[in-house]
């Protein structure tokens, strides 16, 4: 497969335009030509979405375009990639990991968290989004229930930061702190706050959040 570069450019254009038909066709053709689903993901979907993420970070594109791209990729996964993976003997998984996201108790702001969720999805993570105003105990319970790989918490308001510490304390109390790397983000946070709250790391932007999640899981 020597023409990944041109395929990726074409794929990027298709998903940004929300052209499901073209994106699905390109994926299908690639697989028919001999590429494995993982090869298509790594050489086409992943770099296209990284490119789109970077363009959003500089606001060369806006959130609606990123949503369109993510929806289109989901369609490609549903129609082509997932069935191909299911059929393959190797049973390869393309998920980088499962991330739980929540805006902590007392805080109803979710735009930043939603952006992070979208960026994680487009970069190959599974996302379990608990929404806003989520009590610490619920975050821990759902992390266990969903068997996530990372817990991600967001807060815009400084008065909601103590609830982040509660989550880390609850994990300690249940002797499962080592099981769940914790990342925090949002306007009220910075790296020193992450340390104070007992989190593993801090994401200063959606893109940085994705990189940090990869680092936490040793995928970088």
């Amino acid at each position, binding site marked *: 497969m020597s023409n990944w570069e041109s395929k990726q450019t074409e794929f990027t254009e298709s998903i940004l335009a929300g052209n499901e038909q073209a994106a699905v066709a390109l994926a299908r053709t690639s697989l028919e030509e001999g590429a494995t689903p993982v090869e298509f993901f790594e050489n086409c979907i992943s770099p296209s979405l990284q490119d789109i993420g970077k363009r959003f970070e500089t606001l060369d594109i806006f959130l*609606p375009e990123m949503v369109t791209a993510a929806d289109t990729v989901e369609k490609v996964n549903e129609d082509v990639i997932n069935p191909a993976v299911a059929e393959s003997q190797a049973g390869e998984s393309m998920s980088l990991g499962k991330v739980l996201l929540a805006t902590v108790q007392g805080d*109803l702001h*979710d*735009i930043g968290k939603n952006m992070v969720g979208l960026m994680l999805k487009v970069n190959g993570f599974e996302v379990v989004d608990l929404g806003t105003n989520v009590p610490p105990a619920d975050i821990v319970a759902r992390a266990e229930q969903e068997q996530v790989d990372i817990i991600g918490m967001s807060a815009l308001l*400084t*008065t909601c930061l103590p*609830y982040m510490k509660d989550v880390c304390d609850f994990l300690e109390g249940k002797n499962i702190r080592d099981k769940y790397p914790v990342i925090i983000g949002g*306007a009220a946070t910075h790296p020193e706050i992450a340390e104070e709250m007992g989190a593993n790391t801090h994401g200063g932007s959606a893109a940085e959040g994705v990189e940090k999640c990869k680092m936490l899981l040793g995928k970088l």
Partner: protein
Amino acid sequence: MRTRGRLLDVLDKAETGPIVEEQEWDVEYIQKPIARLVKEYDVSWDKDLFVPSDDDLADRVFAAGLELARESGVYCTSTKRRMIWSQAELDEVIATSPSQVTLGEGEDATTIRARRPEENSKVTVCGGAYGIPVPEDQFVPIMLSYAQEPLLDFIDNASLVSTYGRPIRAASPWEAVGCWQEVDLSMEVVRRAGRPGMAIGCAENSPTEIGELSSTSYGGFRPSDWHHAALVSELKTNYEQLTKVVHFARTGSHIHTFANNIFGGYPGGADGMAVALVASLIMLQATYFGCTVNPGPTHAILSCDTYPDMIPGIAVALQGLNRNTNLMTTAFARTAGGPGTKTILYEAAALALAAVPSGIALMEGVQAAVGIETAHCTGLEARFLAQVTHAAEQLSREEANRIVQSLTQKYADDQKTKPVGKPFDQLYDVQKVKPLPEWQNLYVEVCQEFEQEYGLNL
């Protein structure tokens, strides 16, 4: 009686409107209609323009925003329902919105009046730390640095980092404790400033309804103060905000309402943001029926509202609202730059110069370094904002455009490096509450620059 009737109608809407999933709201009721309305109403302007002076464009933006308000309404996240207003109801909201309000008491009271674009009349100015976190022992000197400025008609509080040494937890008893400490400290501020009747923007330690309900009470914040209620992005309310409004209505408190449309978010770019902004201010009035309405749009990455591309969107939306309603619109300087930098002064000035000739009634600020750096706030940047605001009262939109164009060139690159400046205690003599020479000299230098380059005598 009228307010109570309208209040009950609003609460009814939150219980009876169609049920919609939040994600569907964001896409089907915000993103898609805005994209359509931008095209339908031809919401566009020349890229080099920062303060458009095209009245027809302003009216089209207003019409598009009103259509969005009518077609989408407001989403209540507590009940997962769309709250819907008919055109007749919105017409009544617009027709009955107050056009002036007096805040504060006695000799320290100030009156805000609605204005039209290019109206040569006084703009009221509110200066303050606007929720910037500050240590308990610095709250009084920091807020005094604003209250002592004669050009500031009233103040808006900082947030406390802690209360009596403990963290303030939202939605807990600590929120009430923090708000009562905010009452005590801010009353000390206005007393020490010799302006005991001055209105106070509050309560800044009340992310939920708990702090506000507790502290706007006997011996606490007064009805004549300036109480806050907000729409969450985009066009969303919840029981917490609605509960605050019920309390304000019952106590006869003045309500300041605001929205934070996201530039680069679901509304898209500055064109879509302008449409969302008009809809938000109309719906703030419809949902919370306050006195002043603020569009505090937020850059999706930088978090400021002074990013050059955002300014024409803010200006044209304000013009549309101020040409077609009597709403007391405001502008709020949330700068990427912090105190002790020239960037903060350029950014704040650019927004004031765009907003004042666009007809705002009230200028607010400065929420320095986008409001997140502890104690990064001083009264000096608010004084400068007030000076520029009053200088801009005399300007046409065209004249303002030329200055804003030049100013944005001075700060556009710096914004991206987030020059947060220095905290209060490194820029002011904390005991005397006076700017230290470093910050004072920088301020004087920029004032002279404005006089020499732009002919603005500050």
